[in-house]
């Protein structure tokens, strides 16, 4: 198994890339749970006017008919007007693209943003939908039968880990 990139090292790199694109109309939303952790680290580095938003896409998933409702959905909180904003949507790992599709559907129930860009810590390929990340910390190859997960330690440090897929 190839060595995973250091999540802590990827954060300043992503922040440096994002800094150039921030305008007064830029706002950020982190996707629960891993994307919210990443967004909580990036947001203070970028000096955005609006507070950070959080989204849980549990009510917009496309596998509800098969998998039922996720056990502990968090509350979506978007503390700014979505209308007309340039949104940075933040997730930890980009895989099939289904989470991002669900997130975009939910976002449009809040308003019509001017643009949405996707920011991810890691892209592991395997897309099932025409979705790509505009800002990506690292590309990672994940072995067959494994998942890529972001973990947060008690001291707040983030780390990417392999996990056996269920």
């Amino acid at each position, binding site marked *: 198994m190839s060595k995973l990139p250091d999540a802590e090292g990827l954060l300043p790199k992503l922040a440096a890339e994002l800094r150039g694109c921030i305008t007064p109309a830029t706002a950020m939303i982190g996707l629960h749970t891993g994307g919210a952790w990443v967004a909580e680290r990036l947001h203070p580095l970028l000096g955005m006017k609006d507070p950070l938003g959080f989204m849980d896409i*549990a*009510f917009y998933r496309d596998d*509800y008919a098969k998998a*039922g409702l996720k056990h*502990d*959905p968090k*509350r979506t909180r978007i503390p700014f007007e979505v209308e007309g904003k340039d949104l940075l949507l933040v997730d930890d790992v980009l895989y099939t693209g289904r989470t991002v599709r669900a997130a975009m*559907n939910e976002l449009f*129930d809040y308003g019509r943003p001017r643009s949405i860009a996707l920011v991810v810590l890691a892209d592991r390929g395997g897309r099932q939908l025409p979705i790509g990340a505009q800002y990506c910390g690292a590309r990672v190859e994940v072995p067959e039968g494994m998942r890529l997960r972001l973990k947060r330690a008690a001291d707040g440090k983030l780390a990417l880990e392999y996990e056996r897929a269920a």
Partner: protein
Amino acid sequence: MPPSSPHNPQLNANGELQHLLSIEGLPPEILTQILDTAESFAGVTEREVKKVPLLRGKSVFNLFFEASTRTRTTFEIAAKRLSADVINLNVAVSSQSKGESLLDTVANLSAMHADVFIVRHSSSGAPHLIARHVKPHEHVINAGDGRHAHPTQGLLDLYTIRHYKKNFTQLRVAIVGDVLHSRVARSLIHGLTTLGVPEVRVIAPQTLLPAGVESLGVRVFHDMRAGLKDCDVVVMLRLQNERMNGALLPSAQEFFKHYGLTADKLALARPEAIVMHPGPMNRGVEIDSSVADGAHSVILPQVTFGIAVRMAVMSIVAGN
């Protein structure tokens, strides 16, 4: 995952909620899951677009064998906010009056591809009977059966208490009035004890208490002033005039004098106590207008929370 219970008809083989028939017998994990999910739905109901696509393409049948405007409406709103198709059937005045049996009615609706049945019936146990006969992908939610249970009302009461008091394990809760005829009281008592409320009191004249009510784990008071002392939550019940056949009470005025909630009686509870009522209220019978509309009252927020709670129950059972 909560332990599976082969004898509980509400749970599937994985111990997940398949039907909601009563709060009695549900493990605390499932009650908490419903309350947590409802909290997320409360966020949806505050948005401009109050709809999520979760139950798109599913059919929810409101089967009301007994009249109820508020409960039926809140179930309808909840189903619509989940993007389900809602069919309202006022069965009391249709097939049943032509002599069709309960199970035949349900079999016919099932043939129309129902996914969820919301059932209200004047006979205790009717939703259980339906749940035993539906297909595996069909789900039954009890919207009140006889004197037995009204689990979604109990759950919205629990949600309201958690919303204002945060934690169940330090509370003293008083339930006041016609406990005998109240399915709301029964559901709420089971929920409160399951979630660890240390002291649940019932306050009522002996004639309005079911025999052996102490076995539910409550303290019984016949004197309202003694019973309200230091309570954090006061739940008033409606005096069910239409159920009162015979002389259980001298008069409504007499009842109000002893068991009606007035500002001076409420002053004996904790200063930050909340006052709840499942509705519809009889002002001047079980509750004084100044209390119903006063600073301690959370009666209207209860109605709002009821929508989020019913969204949670529907989306959990329909997904299992």
